[in-house]
C-alpha cells in the first residue's frame, strides 16, 4: 500500500516529446457551479453540496470514472496530502482545505480533479514532455463529462466565472516545466525571462540563496485567460516553448563545443556525489540531479533513464522521503535519509563509466 503512493504518475515516465528539455506539460481549467458562492465564501453545507454534485456525476457516468479514486482531504494524513503535492497532483492550497476539499484522481495520475479549491472545480491533466494539446484534450474530456450534469457558472460575455479575475474566461492555465541548465549556466536566462513577460507569459523558478534557480527548473505558463480561445492560448505557449527549447539546445551545443570536458566532469562529479554522499539537502540534490540530467541528455552519461531521474526529483522531497522511511523525519534526519534513498534507486542502474 505504501509503495503504491509512489512512482506512478504518468508525467514521470519521461518519454514524451522533447523530454530532454520539457519535464512535463500541465493544463488545468477552473470551473464553478452556478448558485453556490465560491469556496472561500461558501458555508460548509454549500461546499458539501459541491462534493455531492461531483459524486453524483461520477456515479452517473461510471464508465468514464471507473479509473478514478475519490479522496476527501480531511480523511488523508498530512503525509499523504503532501506526497500528492510533491507529485504535482494537488495544489498546496487544496492540501490545506480540510473542510470539504477533495480530489478525484485517475489511476495513472495523469488527471486529477480538485474539488473546493479556490474554485469549486479544477480539472487538471499533466503529461510527460511537451504535450500541451494532449493535456488539454484530457482536461477537456472531463470538463465535457462534468458539464452534462453540473450547471457551470458561465457568462456569455465573461465566459467561465472564477473566484479570481485572473482566471476568468477560459479558466485555462497551461504550463510547461522546463529544464534549462545551459541557458542558466551561460546567463542567457535573464534576457529570456524579460522577453517572456512581454508576451503575456508568466515564468516561475525558484531562487536559492544566491541567484541560482534550484535544479535549473523553470515553469512557463499563460497569464491571459480571457479574450483568446483555448487553442490560441495553447498555441502561443507551445510556440514560445519551442523557441526556448531551440535556444537551450543551441546553448548546450555551444557548451559542448567550447568545454565538453568541463561539462562531462560536472555531470560525472554530480553522479559521484549522488552515489556516495551521506548528507544531502534537497537543494543540493536538485542541483546534482540537474547536472546528471544534462550529462544524460548530452549522451555523456549512459545507462540511466529519464524515468529514474524524474522519480529521483520526487523522492528527494520531504513527504516522499518520510513515506519511504516510514516515519516522521526532522530536516536533519531527512538530509541523512535522502542520500540513502537516492543510492537505493541508483543501485539498480549501471552507468557505463
Amino acid at each position, binding site marked *: 500500500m505504501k509503495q503504491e503512493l509512489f512512482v506512478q504518475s504518468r508525467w514521470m515516465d519521461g518519454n514524451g516529446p522533447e523530454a530532454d528539455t520539457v519535464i512535463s506539460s500541465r493544463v488545468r481549467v477552473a470551473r464553478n457551479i452556478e448558485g453556490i458562492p465560491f469556496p472561500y465564501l461558501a458555508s460548509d453545507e454549500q461546499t458539501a453540496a459541491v462534493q455531492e454534485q461531483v459524486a453524483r456525476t461520477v456515479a452517473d457516468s461510471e464508465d468514464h470514472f471507473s479509473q478514478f479514486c475519490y479522496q476527501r482531504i480531511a480523511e488523508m494524513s498530512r503525509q499523504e496530502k503532501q506526497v500528492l503535492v510533491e507529485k504535482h497532483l494537488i495544489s498546496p492550497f487544496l492540501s490545506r482545505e480540510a473542510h470539504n476539499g477533495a480530489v478525484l484522481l485517475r489511476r495513472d495520475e495523469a488527471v486529477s480533479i480538485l474539488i473546493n479549491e479556490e474554485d469549486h472545480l479544477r480539472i487538471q491533466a499533466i503529461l510527460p514532455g511537451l504535450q500541451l494539446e494532449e493535456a488539454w484534450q484530457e482536461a477537456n474530456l472531463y470538463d465535457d463529462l462534468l458539464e452534462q450534469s453540473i450547471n457551470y457558472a458561465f457568462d456569455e460575455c465573461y465566459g467561465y466565472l472564477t473566484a479570481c479575475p485572473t482566471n476568468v474566461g477560459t479558466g485555462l492555465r497551461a504550463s510547461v516545466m522546463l529544464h534549462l541548465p545551459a541557458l542558466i549556466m551561460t546567463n542567457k536566462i535573464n534576457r529570456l525571462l524579460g522577453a517572456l513577460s512581454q508576451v503575456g507569459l508568466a515564468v*516561475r523558478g*525558484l*531562487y536559492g540563496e544566491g541567484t541560482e534557480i534550484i535544479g535549473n527548473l523553470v515553469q512557463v505558463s499563460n497569464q491571459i485567460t*480571457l479574450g483568446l480561445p483555448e487553442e490560441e492560448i495553447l498555441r502561443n505557449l507551445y510556440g514560445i516553448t519551442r523557441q526556448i527549447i531551440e535556444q537551450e539546445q543551441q546553448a548546450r551545443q555551444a557548451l559542448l563545443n567550447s568545454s565538453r570536458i568541463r561539462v562531462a566532469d560536472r555531470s560525472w562529479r554530480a553522479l559521484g556525489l549522488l552515489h556516495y554522499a551521506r548528507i544531502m539537502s534537497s537543494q543540493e540534490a536538485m542541483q546534482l540531479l540537474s547536472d546528471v540530467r544534462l550529462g544524460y541528455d548530452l549522451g555523456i552519461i549512459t545507462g540511466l533513464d529519464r524515468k529514474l531521474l524524474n522519480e529521483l526529483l520526487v523522492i528527494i522531497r520531504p513527504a516522499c522521503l518520510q513515506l519511504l522511511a516510514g516515519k516522521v523525519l526532522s530536516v536533519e534526519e531527512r538530509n541523512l535519509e535522502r542520500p540513502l534513498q537516492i543510492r537505493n534507486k541508483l543501485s539498480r542502474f549501471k552507468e557505463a563509466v
Partner: protein
Amino acid sequence: MVCQECGKEEANIFIAKIINGKKMEIHLCERCAREKEEFDITFEPQFTLHNFFGGLLQENVRSSGEQVRAAKIQCPKCALTFAQFCQIGRLGCSSCFAAFGAKLQPLLKRIHGSARHIGKAPRRSQEAILVKRDLERLKEEMQQAVLKEEFEEAAKIRDRIRALEKDLEQGGKRT
C-alpha cells in the same frame, strides 16, 4: 510581518522567487519554511493581488463621493462589497460579475487585454451564444454591403439575420 503561509506566526525567513519575470520575496515563519523546505513551482502561488487591486478603487472613479458609492456596491447574492473585492482580490459568487459589472470590466481589460470571452462554452449555452455571434457578424457584413452599395447582397444578409433572430426567440436552436 506575518507569515504568508499560516498567517499567524511572525515571518522571519525571506525567500526570493521569480514571479512573472520579476524577483519577489516570500515571507514565512520558521515552522512553515521548514515544512515546505522548497516550494512547489507547478502550481500558481496563492499570493494576494494587493498591488494589483490596491489602486483600483481610486483609479476607476473621478470624485471621492463616487469612490464611496462604488465601494458600497454590494452583490445581492453573496453580500460581498466592491470595497471587499478590491481588498481580497477574489469575487464571492457568479452574481458578483453582474453586480460589479461596469467596475469590473476595466480591471479585466487590464489583466487580459480584453473583457470578452471567445473560447469554449458549456453546450447548453453554446447554441444561443453561437447564434448571437453569427448575428453580430452578419450585421457587420450587412453594413459593409450597404457601404459598398451592394444592396442585393445586403438584403440577402438581412433575411438571414431575421431568420436567426427568430431562432433565438425560440430558444437558440438553429433551424
